[in-house]
């Protein structure tokens, strides 16, 4: 299995995704400070108070980050799966004496793990930098406590897993048409819906649990269906 992962990484370069992750990180850091500065830029804004509270600020940043990484996940899934099983490239892939299910599972695990890992790292760095500057020159009116930090990390973890799962579900939509664009559009639509649902109850844990549960079930169904498609694939 480890050997197969190494081969997969040799075939598909990760450098573009590292660069995309870096760009996402820098953008999100800027976004976070911009949100935190709203009460100072426009004190008359009715919701200005919200932007000076850590849970809201971290939550909204995590959600935007999740949307970005779910799209990145779909792009990666398109490259690792859709393109590999399309056209003449599929002949090469299916000509190897390796279980088709194993190869697909490996690709899905790679895409999911990269998405979750990259978003966690990116989010953790953003939070660490933000909290560091907050401890020196606070922008928010809240008290910065360990509880706030842990809650933010927990929310970040849940959003990272959601981003990975959404990439798998988007692939389920795009794979039958072997279309990269359909996969990416599906991830945009999914991210919009999920962000909308979670943002309506940002600090409400059962809502996050429910969204994670439903998305997890959909992702499991997606994997089952994708495995069946690949097993019955003729090229």
């Amino acid at each position, binding site marked *: 299995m480890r050997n197969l992962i190494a*081969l997969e990484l*040799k075939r598909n*370069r990760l450098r573009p995704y590292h660069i995309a992750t870096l760009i996402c990180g820098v953008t999100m850091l800027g976004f976070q400070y911009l949100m935190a500065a709203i009460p100072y830029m426009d004190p008359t804004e009715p919701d200005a108070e919200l932007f000076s509270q850590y849970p809201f600020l971290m939550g909204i940043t995590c959600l935007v980050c999740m949307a970005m990484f779910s799209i990145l996940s779909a792009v990666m899934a398109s490259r690792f799966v859709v393109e590999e099983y399309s056209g003449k490239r599929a002949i*090469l892939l299916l*000509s190897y*004496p390796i279980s088709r299910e194993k190869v697909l599972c490996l690709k899905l695990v790679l895409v999911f793990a990269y998405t979750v890992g990259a978003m966690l790292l990116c989010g953790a760095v953003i939070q660490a930098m933000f909290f560091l500057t907050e401890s020196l020159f606070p922008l928010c009116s809240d008290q910065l406590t360990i509880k706030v930090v842990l809650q933010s990390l927990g929310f970040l973890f849940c959003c990272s897993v959601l981003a990975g799962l959404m990439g798998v579900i988007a692939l389920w939509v795009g794979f039958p048409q072997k279309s990269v664009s359909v996969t990416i559009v599906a991830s945009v639509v999914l991210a919009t819906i999920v962000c909308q649902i979670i943002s309506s109850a940002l600090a409400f844990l059962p809502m996050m649990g429910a969204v994670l549960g439903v998305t997890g079930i959909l992702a499991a169904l997606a994997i089952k269906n994708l495995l069946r498609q690949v097993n019955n694939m*003729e*090229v």
Partner: protein
Amino acid sequence: MGQIVISANNLTKTFSGKEVIRNCTFSVERGSIYGFLGRNGAGKTTVLKLLLGLLKPSAGTASVLGLDSVRDNGAILQRTGSLIETPIFYEHLSAADNLRLHLAYMGIEDTDVEPTLCRVGLPGTESQPVSTFSLGMRQRLAIARAIIHRPEVLILDEPVNGLDPVGMKEMRILFRRLVQEEGMTILMSSHLLSEIEQSADRVGVIADGTVVQEAEMADIRKQHPSDMEDYFISLIQGGADHA
């Protein structure tokens, strides 16, 4: 008659209700070169894909090395080298890395790729990215990939496509050596009559998805010393009845 290593029995393949391959029956003996001759679109590639298990037959059976092409697909792919349609490579990797990758997928380690590259006429290209290769070089590399793991059977779809006359001759010599020195069995398809005529020990002519004639090349040479081309063309165009 020698041992049969590739066989198709009443092989039929239907796409969207249309029979592309109809009751195709033929067999290939161990240690021989079998030429599969037919016009473009006659069904050559489809038959080769059915043998490799890349397509599932609608009816009939196909076997390679005594293994069923659907049920024992993995075992067949392990012991077979193939080149189907236009060769595809990982463009950002070098020629040597593409071969190493192939070997790793085949579960083979510690095989030096340089001798194989030399064998197909690509010496000194180990570190060259495939993206810089010409059509002919890609075809040679694809043949290298098909033979590097020393398969028992080679299934090659239009193997000399894109090669110049020198390259065609070199590959012909290589195929013969693979058969004579390593005991490989080769099934190669082509629409080039001259190629099949010069390479194959036995020839199967496919027209409209079915094998219309199978014969030893030596017998055909004897029976049609001066009109071999016309003989094949009549088979390819109209089937056995017109021969």
